[in-house]
């Protein structure tokens, strides 16, 4: 669409793990103030793609460009230093560590000098609590509490708050709304919009059509590691998107199949296909 330089651009990315090819020829752009929704069935390669973007994996082939210059990240820290913050699917929190220590894992604020640089617990706790409260989790007031005592959604919110806090240029969220209640999910979507308004490039992965349509400007659908569709907001209907997300199968057909089966089988759903 725009002729501005994209913040992050992938050019013909391939990723294989030994003999297993997971990503083929991925070319995508994400601009400032734009939300790219990455859609696709389980195992399509979405997480692998964003792990490549955040320095966890190195691409087998292809290039990444940031602000019009080629970049490569040897490790997650290098991507982080370039302003790419990622919330990975699953994990991201450490149950037996405090909220403050979780929030700053790997990027601890310190005070003091030389060999006596100490972890600044008060500051870490204060910022962590402040940021999760902004996610709508107002029950959290003590940064010294262990994260393992929080609910799944609270932990997820903490991890999102962390990515949002550290995402200076690009914010990548891998299924951030998966464990969340309606209210917290709405908060996350609002935060994504807010990040976008502030000029961040956001890459957002979800399996929920509603969530994707609520925030997405640009949609890319991965099917078996390749881009099957790449379109902008308003170019496809909700049903078309849902079908693409199901790996190209028509949801209407799937649903009709199940309903038809249930009618003829005393209301039992069909056994899962293998």
């Amino acid at each position: 669409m725009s002729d501005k330089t994209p913040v992050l651009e992938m050019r013909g990315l391939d990723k294989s793990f030994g003999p297993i090819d997971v990503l083929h020829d991925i070319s995508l752009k994400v601009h400032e103030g734009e939300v790219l929704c990455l859609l696709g069935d389980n195992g399509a390669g979405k997480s692998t793609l964003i792990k490549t973007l955040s320095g966890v994996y190195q691409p087998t082939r292809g290039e990444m460009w940031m602000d019009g210059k080629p970049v490569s990240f040897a490790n997650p820290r290098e991507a982080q230093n370039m302003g790419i913050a990622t919330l990975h699917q699953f994990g991201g929190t450490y149950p037996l560590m405090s909220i403050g220590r979780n929030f700053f894992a790997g990027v601890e604020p310190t005070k003091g000098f030389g060999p006596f640089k100490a972890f600044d617990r008060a500051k870490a706790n204060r910022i962590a609590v402040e940021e999760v409260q902004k996610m709508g989790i107002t029950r959290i007031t003590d940064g010294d509490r262990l994260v393992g005592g929080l609910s799944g959604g609270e932990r997820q919110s903490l991890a999102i708050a962390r990515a949002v806090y550290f995402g200076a240029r690009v914010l990548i969220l891998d299924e951030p709304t998966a464990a969340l209640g309606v209210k917290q999910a709405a908060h996350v979507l609002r935060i994504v919009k807010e990040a976008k308004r502030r000029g961040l490039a956001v890459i957002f992965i979800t399996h929920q059509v509603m969530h994707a349509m609520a925030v997405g400007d640009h949609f890319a659908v991965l099917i078996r590691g390749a881009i099957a569709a790449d379109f902008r907001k308003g170019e496809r209907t909700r049903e078309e998107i849902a079908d693409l997300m199901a790996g190209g199968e028509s949801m209407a057909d799937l649903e009709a199949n199940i309903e038809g089966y249930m009618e003829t089988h005393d209301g039992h759903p069909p056994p899962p296909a293998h």
Partner: protein
Amino acid sequence: MDMISNLLRRPAAASVLSLVGVLAFYILIAGVDFGKLMGAASWVNYAARIGIVALPVGLLMISGEIDISIGAMIPAGAMTTAIISGHYELPIIFGILGALAIGVIVGTINGVLAVRTNVPTLIVTLATLVGMQGVVLAGSKLLTGSASVPLTAPDWAKTVFGQLMFGGSHQVVIVWWVFFAVIFWFVLHQSRYGNWIFAMGGDKESARNAGIPVNRMTILLFILTATSASFVGMCHAILFNSAQVSGGMHDIFNIIVSVVVGGVLLTGGFGSVPGIFVGSLTFAIVNKGIDFTAIDRNWSNLIIGVMLLVAVAMNESLRKLALSAAIGKRGKQKQDAPMSAASGEQRLPVPHSRRVERNEGPTDV
């Protein structure tokens, strides 16, 4: 009440309770003279011997790995010093550096194998344990023709590593132990590296994704465990004027028991240096305190077994307590109420929207 439950939530709580329990048992039931026990050096010396190694082993276990090759590294350190400075009569400094170097080498091997292969570190270090035993035995037979090598260290080396203090029988390693404990305490609880170690033990994958140099830290921790073990061996050779290839096998279990009694979670991610310190102390009191009773010394292992179970059970329940700490219960926390803090240092201040969810939620699409 609140204060007590806060104290119980500390990772070192169970080890302190174990220590109190063990002392109570010895004094009240086994009839140990408390004054005599406190004046004795045997258990303090032993606590220092295992405690110096227990500190890095504890950190390694918090990071989710384990090192049992320490059992071979204590005699390896002693033999290296004795062979270099005793048998070959080179200056003691070469013996000392040699002992530390063998620790660094074996630690590096352990660490690199741990991060490069998917072999569990129990197996990796079991292999180096057995391997190093062979190397030490064969090496000393080959070089000296004997399994026991005498060594006479100069005065300065005795003063620093192998002296008895206060004109009595307390060994100078006690000072080293306390010194190392302070350093390890700072590293684990005050520095950012401590946070990395906890994160590695909590979720290695997430730690890696967060940019923590997991592999480098792992190798470093393995170097510390092996080197601390060879350091202890070196001190012993200097103190006792000789080194033997045997020994060290008991130390493996004694050190790991100390660490576990000290509140370190076997699966990683939880523990503390004060806990490890008290754990070593407790273990040493059980092990050496038995000599102050009329009980046959062989029973001390039973006591250790019981103590291990009780301490681990306590650790489990105290950790649950720590996890279930009620939200916002403590009044003083209200002070660092989040909203009042300056937002100047935030990189992306997302204002807390006052709008009702319905206005901008996902439902409006």
